[in-house]
Structure formats: structure tokens, C-alpha cells
């Protein structure tokens, strides 16, 4: 049963991910992205990572896609113009893609059995994650706060229009 659900949702995720790239309309892409994130969240849920899956929905499907849609709305995209792709580029690109695909296939077929599966004893719930953050991983967590502060300063530098007097 679990296998079937897993297969269904991984296929669903892959298909919607393909939809993000392939659809011509930017809005359709954005909505495919939402579906893709929901599919991923379900996969996380199947592994017992409830916290990650909730975060996935909240942050990615919620905040980030909303930002995408806003950008699309503000920029007001025109219909995409058809671009002629030259033949050599098509040949080169498909050669690259097929080589990579063959390598991947070979690697996967050789190594699927080799990769050890780590048994997880604890469920990645909010409680365990926050316990780890405030005990074992306190120092990286503090560095993260410094990092965010640096980013805020950086965004201020980038967003201020050039030539504006300091008020």
C-alpha cells in the first residue's frame, strides 16, 4: 500500500515538475510548481518527516509561490515570442542530455543496491528539530542569524535607488 502511494506521488511530483518547465504560460508554471511542492510534501510525510513536510507547504507552496505570482503580475509578461533555435545547438544539447541520461542510468543500475539505508529511530517532529537547534546545533544556528542580518544589510544596499540622498 505504502509503495503504491509513494509511486503515485513521486510520479505526480515528476509530472508537475515537467509541467513547470514545459508550459508556455507563466501562471500555469506557477500553479504546477504549487502542485509539485504538495507532491514533495506528501513524499516527506510518507517518510515520517512531518515537520519538513509542513514547512514545505508553508514556505514553498505558500510564501515563495505567492511571491512568484506577484512578480508575474507586476511584470505583466507578454505572450512569449517564438524563438528559432539553430540546428547545431539542438544537436549539441540533445547529445549532452542523452550522454548524461545514459551515465545516470548506468550509475543507478549499478548502485541501487549498494546505497545503505540509514534506519531512523526518531521522528523528525517539531520537538526533536527544535531540541537539536537549541542544543547540539546552537552555534550553526547563531551563525545563521548573523547571516540573515548580513542579508538584510545587503538587501538595503541593493534596494536603495542610486543617487538618492541619505535622509
Amino acid at each position, binding site marked *: 500500500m505504502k509503495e503504491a502511494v509513494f509511486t503515485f506521488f513521486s510520479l505526480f511530483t515528476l509530472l508537475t515538475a515537467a509541467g513547470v518547465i514545459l508550459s508556455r504560460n507563466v501562471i500555469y508554471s506557477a500553479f504546477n510548481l504549487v502542485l509539485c511542492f504538495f507532491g514533495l510534501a506528501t513524499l516527506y510525510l510518507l517518510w515520517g518527516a512531518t515537520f519538513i513536510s509542513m514547512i514545505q507547504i508553508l514556505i514553498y507552496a505558500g510564501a515563495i509561490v505567492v511571491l512568484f505570482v506577484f512578480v508575474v503580475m507586476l511584470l505583466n509578461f507578454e505572450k512569449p515570442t517564438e524563438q528559432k533555435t539553430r540546428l547545431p545547438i539542438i544537436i549539441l544539447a540533445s547529445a549532452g542530455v542523452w550522454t548524461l541520461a545514459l551515465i545516470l542510468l548506468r*550509475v543507478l543500475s*549499478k*548502485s541501487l543496491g*549498494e*546505497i*545503505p539505508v*540509514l534506519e531512523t529511530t526518531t521522528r523528525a517532529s517539531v520537538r526533536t528539530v527544535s531540541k537539536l537547534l537549541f*542544543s*547540539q*546545533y*546552537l*552555534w*550553526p544556528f547563531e*551563525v*545563521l542569524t*548573523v*547571516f540573515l*542580518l*548580513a*542579508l538584510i*544589510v*545587503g*538587501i*538595503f*544596499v*541593493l534596494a*536603495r*535607488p*542610486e*543617487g*538618492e*540622498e*541619505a*535622509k
Partner: protein
Amino acid sequence: MIINEFLVPVSPVLSLMVSAVFLIVLETVFKGERGQVGKLLLALAGPLVSIFLVSLVIPVSVVDSLATDNSQLPSWLMEFKNSYQLDRLSGALFLAINFFVLLTIVFVESFLKGVKEKTEVFSLLLFAAAGMMLLVSSGNLLMLFMALELMSLPTYILVGLRKNDLRSSEAALKYFLYGSFATVLLVFAIALLYGQFGTLQLSAISGLFKSQIPTGVATVAAFGLLLAAIGFKVGMAPYHLWVPDAYQGAPTPITGFMGSAIKLAGFGLAIRVFGQTLLPLVQEWATPLSYFAVVTIFVGNLAALRQTDLKRLFAYSSISHAGYLFLGVVSLGGGPQALEPLQYYLWIYGLLFLGTFGLLALVEMHKKNLDFDRLNGLGFQRPVLGFCFLLFLLSAAGIPPTAGFFSKYFILIQAFQSGQRLSVVLAALSSLIGVFYYLKVISHLYMKPAGAAETGVPRAPKAAFLGILLCGLGMIYFSLVPAF
């Protein structure tokens, strides 16, 4: 306990962070041009205090780390001790990073006249430097990732500082896209390693390699990804495409920072990964990686031949130097004595790159374009600066009495002793190609008549003059004391 086990070891990094944060506070109180001297002093105080603290902390900690009992510590302190390696290598690299940041702050203050947000630029520089220090001392994959991000993101912003300049924006976008791609590769590598070994500790992974040689595809893939991420960050050959554009588009003092400090931090990471974690597997990776380094040297030198813009020229030259440095990393397989030539090379290369870009910033102060003719007659017009430039160029080319010759020589000797004979021969041959374009620049300095006075090179601001002079003196010092 917290003071001794945490605050004292981490104080060199903290002093940079504190100074960066107080700069922002100062900017909210004294806005704009007011109190510029105070802000500058605060910005300089961070690295200076940090240098002082490094010289206090490192000798103690190197002795101390052998005999301490960790069992009484709370878990976060244990984790901190594992993720922050305070050894001699960290100490040397901390000093270099602080020194390069000091010089960069001086050049930014002197040459970035049009930029209103100078305080924020200082603060971003200091944050990036703190990230570098955490990166070169990281002993844990999680910390390594955080430090890499803390180093990279402020730099992307600094590259795009000139918002009305299309080149600068293009450079920032390119650097950001390539850089974040490298980060993705790194995260993927970390995920694969963690999935395989169940630990983030570099020393633990290294210990596992000692007991058994892993053959799994996942390990190979993980280290391929790590190599690609490091290659992106330091600009190795197949991953170097962003380097010329980013180095050309960035404001010139910032380019100096990228070429010296960031490259140094990238190689610090390479030493931690290849020279320490992967050392048990050295037979597997030494020869392929040495060819990788040789290809980088050739790509950099050959592409530099065709450049007409000075910034692009030195960008390609920095790619070839990355190749030599990587050869130094490869020669770590021969034993830990290869570490010293590598540090020596990093110091010399960083100084000459910073000095060169300080000079280029001076040349483009009044007129933006930077083709070779802008340097005509500089050697006689500004004798001291011209001589410094001569030193940098001779060093970069590796002409015998200069520091650059010794650094290249030591690296090649170590690589030869570790068994990379063919690569050493090819690298030495390739440095001959390099001589050609460095001499071309020198010929413009000394053998062409100077242009009209208004197109010439302006008199350098005092602080910048001192900074460039310091780089020049550093080159002389390192050539007189050719050992580290």
C-alpha cells in the same frame, strides 16, 4: 566555562561580526557623510583586533587541544569544538584574511567615491570575512555550508554595488547564478555524505576512510560534487566561465577582495576537504586532480594572451594562479610539509592581486576604460607606484628574484616530490606563456611615452598609496624571507 571554551577561541571571528553590527548601528545614528572617520576607524578596528586576538589565541589552543577533557561540556559546546578547528593552518589563514580585508577597506574608502552606502559596504566586507574565517576553520559539513553562504552572499551584493552600471549588474547576476549553482552542488554532496556515513564530522568521515576504502558510487558522486563546488568557488578550469565577467564588472577594489580573500578561503576549504578529509584516499584522486590543475593553468594563461582589457587580463591570470594553487593542494598527498608552500603562495598571490587592483582602481579614477594604453609611462610618471606594479607583475610571472618565483618554485617542488612529474613539467612550461603577457604590461609601463597630462594617472590618495606600498613591501619581504 563558556568564556574559556567558546568566547576565547571564537573571539577572532566575533570581533569582525561585532564591528560589522556596530557599523550599522553607527550608520543609523550618524547618517550619510557624518562621522565618516569614526566609521572608517570602527571598520578597521574589527580586523585589527582580530589579528591581535589570533596571535593571542592560536598558540594557546594548538597546545591546548591535545589535552582537554570534553566529556563535561554541554552538547552545543561539544559540537562547537568539533566544528571549529583552531590549528596552525586556521591561524595563518585568519591572519591573511584579516590583512586582505584591511587593505580592501582602505581601497574602498579611497576609490569608491560615488557609492553612498559606504558604511554598509564595510559591514558587508566584515561579514564576508567572518564567513571566510569560519569556512577555513570548519570541521563539520553543516558549519562549512553556513560559512560558505555567509561568505558568498555579501560578496554577490558587493559585486552589484554600482546599480546604474549595466556591467556591474550583469556581473552580480552571473556571479550569483553560478555561485548558487555551486552551493546546490555542495548541499547535494553533503546530503549524499550524510546519507552514507550518518555523520557531518569531517574527521569522522576521514576516520571511516582510513578503516576501509569505499567503492560505492554515492561516495564518488559526493566527492565529484564537492570538487565541482570548490572548482566554481575558486574558478578552476571547466568552472571558470563566470570569473572574467564577474571580475571585470565588479567595482575594482571589490575585485581585489574577490581575487585575494575569497580565493584564499576557497583554497582553505579545498585543503580541509582534499588535504585532510580525503587524505586517506590520496592514491585515487591525486593524479586526476593534478591534470585538472594543469588544464586550469593552460586555460588561464592562453586566454589571457588575447585580452585587451586589464581587468579581464588579470582575471584570466587569477585562473592560472588557481591552477598552481590547486597543484599545491594535490601535493598535500605527499605529506603535511606541502602545507607551508601553499600558505606562502596564498599570501603572495593575495598581496599581488590586491596591490594590482588597487593600482587599477587608481588608473580608472578619472577615465573608466582600462586598456593597455592607459598605463603608458606610468613607471616614470609615478615612480614608486610604478615600481610596485613592476614587482607585482614580475612576481605574478615568476621571474627569479621575486617572491612569486619562490612561491611557484616551492609548490612545483612539492608537487614533484609527491609524484606528479608530468603535471609539474607542463605547469612550468605554461608559466612561460604567462611571462609573455605580463611583460607586455611592463612594456607599457616603462617603454611607451606618457599620454597627455589630463588622461594620465592621478595622484593617489594617501591611504591608498600606503596600501599599495604595503603590498609592494610585502612582496619584497617575502622575497627576502622565502620560507613561511
